[in-house]
């Protein structure tokens, strides 16, 4: 039975803005399947974004959606969540949006461990502005602002999230779609701040400048250079050099911010009732 995507897509808002060969459409469909399987009512979920190609996704989905300023999706989402802690709040972002201009908000949302699902579509480039290098553009790759090859060191997004205190960290790719569905579901089911990095491809502004002949080659690059974390961990370093692990990379139990804050509110209420 084919999946009914139309139930989540806003009438008249497609076609999307993404270029031919862009992998964001793959993620878009995976996200809708995940939400369907979680049975979250459309009225009870908000999807918040900043600026960039990834940030245009909320406009197509029939939820409560908010397209904000560059890098700032997380604090807007934090405001929504603190005002309505029983609702589901998600953020969709890109590598530049989340870790460059929004880097401070990213690490502090992780530290706070507020119950927001953060999905970072890492396509290794600033796509919307035409191909400038981002904090994840591989060293040596060409970008419009690195015409001699990128010399600017990288962030590893899952490491950054883990180090900053996120309680669930995962990585998927646009190539490994069934696994991606499961990762999105697990990220959304996690209570606390979850960060899911999804490796994506931007053929238009990254691939064609960097010796990828076509979008398919970029998807095959994901296949050839990734390893499930279970396999990755068992291999010696020389076997994993240049490859990246996928799957659930880290999770821990940690107090969720809204629960802690509203727990305090309840304690104060009880104290007042007792006349303390």
């Amino acid at each position, binding site marked *: 039975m084919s999946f009914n995507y139309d139930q989540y897509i*806003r009438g008249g*808002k497609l076609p999307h803005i993404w270029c031919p060969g862009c992998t964001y459409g793959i993620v878009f469909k995976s996200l809708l399947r995940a939400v369907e399987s979680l049975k979250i009512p*459309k*009225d*009870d979920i*908000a999807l*918040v974004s900043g600026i960039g190609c990834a940030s245009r996704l*909320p*406009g197509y989905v*029939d*939820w*409560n*959606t*908010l*397209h*904000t*300023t560059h890098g*700032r999706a*997380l*604090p*807007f*989402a*934090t*405001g*929504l*969540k*603190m*005002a*309505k802690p029983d*609702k589901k709040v998600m953020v969709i972002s890109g590598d530049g949006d989340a870790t460059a201009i929004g880097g*401070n*908000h990213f*690490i*502090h949302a992780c530290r706070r461990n507020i119950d927001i699902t953060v999905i970072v579509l890492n396509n290794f480039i600033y796509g919307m502005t035409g191909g400038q290098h981002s904090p994840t553009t591989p060293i040596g790759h060409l970008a419009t602002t690195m015409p001699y090859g990128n010399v600017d060191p990288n962030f590893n997004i899952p490491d950054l999230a883990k180090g900053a205190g996120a309680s669930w960290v995962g990585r998927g790719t646009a190539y490994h779609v069934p696994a991606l569905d499961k990762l999105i579901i697990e990220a959304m089911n996690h209570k606390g701040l979850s960060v899911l990095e999804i490796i994506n491809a931007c053929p238009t502004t990254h691939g064609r400048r960097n010796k990828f002949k076509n979008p398919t080659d970029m998807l095959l690059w994901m296949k050839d250079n990734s390893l499930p974390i279970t396999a990755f961990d068992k291999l010696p370093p020389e076997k994993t050099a240049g490859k990246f692990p996928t799957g659930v990379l880290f999770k821990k139990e940690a107090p969720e911010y809204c629960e802690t*804050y509203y727990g*305090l*509110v309840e304690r*104060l*209420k009880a104290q*007042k009732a007792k006349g303390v």
Partner: protein
Amino acid sequence: MGTLKLLQGNEACAEGALYAGCTFFAGYPITPSTEVAEYMSRRLPQIGGAFLQMEDEIAAMAAVIGGSLAGAKTLTATSGPGFSLKQENLGFGMLCEVPCVVIDVMRGGPSTGVPTGPSQSDIMQCRWGTHGDHPVICLTPGYVQEIFSETVRAFNLAEKYRTPVIVAFDEIVGHMREKIEIPDKGVIPIENRRRPTCSPAEYKPFDETKGDVPPVADFFSGYRQHITGLNHASDGFPVNASPRIHTDELRLMRKVEANKKDIIRYEEYLLEDAEVAVFAYGVSGRSGKNAVEQARAAGIKAGLFRPLTIWPFPEEEVAALAARVKAIVVPELSLGQIIYEVERCAKGKCKVVGIYRVDGDPINPTQILDKIKEVK
């Protein structure tokens, strides 16, 4: 009779917010506005509201907009560099018509400037700080009691006109302690944003056919909607074509401009027969009042025009004033900002003379009195 309290201006501001129904504060520590955050951090958890100290000023402004979109009355408070940092998201709030209140306790600048000293040099930033054309409502209380009442009014205006409202006062009145009366609940009427009565299917967040201030639906209330900082159509979705952008920007401006009578508030003191007027707000308005009284005692017909709403600027009132006095004296804690507006409205009908000070001290009444004598 309400409750009498001895409060600092910043504390009175927090009390005003709570009186108006504020249940959400997000901020970042910065002198000289921090007491607003400290007060709210004590009070909001007691009433089940949300208090957030965010990672920076930008985040605080964003969180306040997010909280408001979820239906809360929200507040942030800042000063100097923090106000500069808030400008981008303040513009988002204006374009997306999100009610919220921003307190700017003005300190010396530019840059780190004089964090502990008073200033009135953010007043043009209040009007033009964020990029693009936009309407602004900005209130300028000068007494602790007024900081309370004007903060209540700021929330009411934010709700009524569906826009961020700025309350700008200086460090002196922010930190000054005065006796104030907090009225009993209900004494000051409280406005709440108009919510839709149509079905969710029919709802459009920026439906100009519903008036210049279209109804607001809260996130998660069943009225699913899209809000974007891109110029948008009445359904909230991006447009980049004429004439929609033009007509919608005109509507944004009109909802403030066409309601100036409701928004503009000021005090006129001894102006009926005045030959010299002092135009001053905030702490300079207090000095102005004293100077005018001293001038009257010396037989000089002086009066005070003290705006409580600085934006939209009381253009008609200042133009009328200029037509009947010899001179307007404009004392301000800057090197001359609001005087440009006074000159613009006076249109050369009277002399307009500034008194400027940026050394961290207030303009004292004697300075103003000397100028009144000079121009009379």
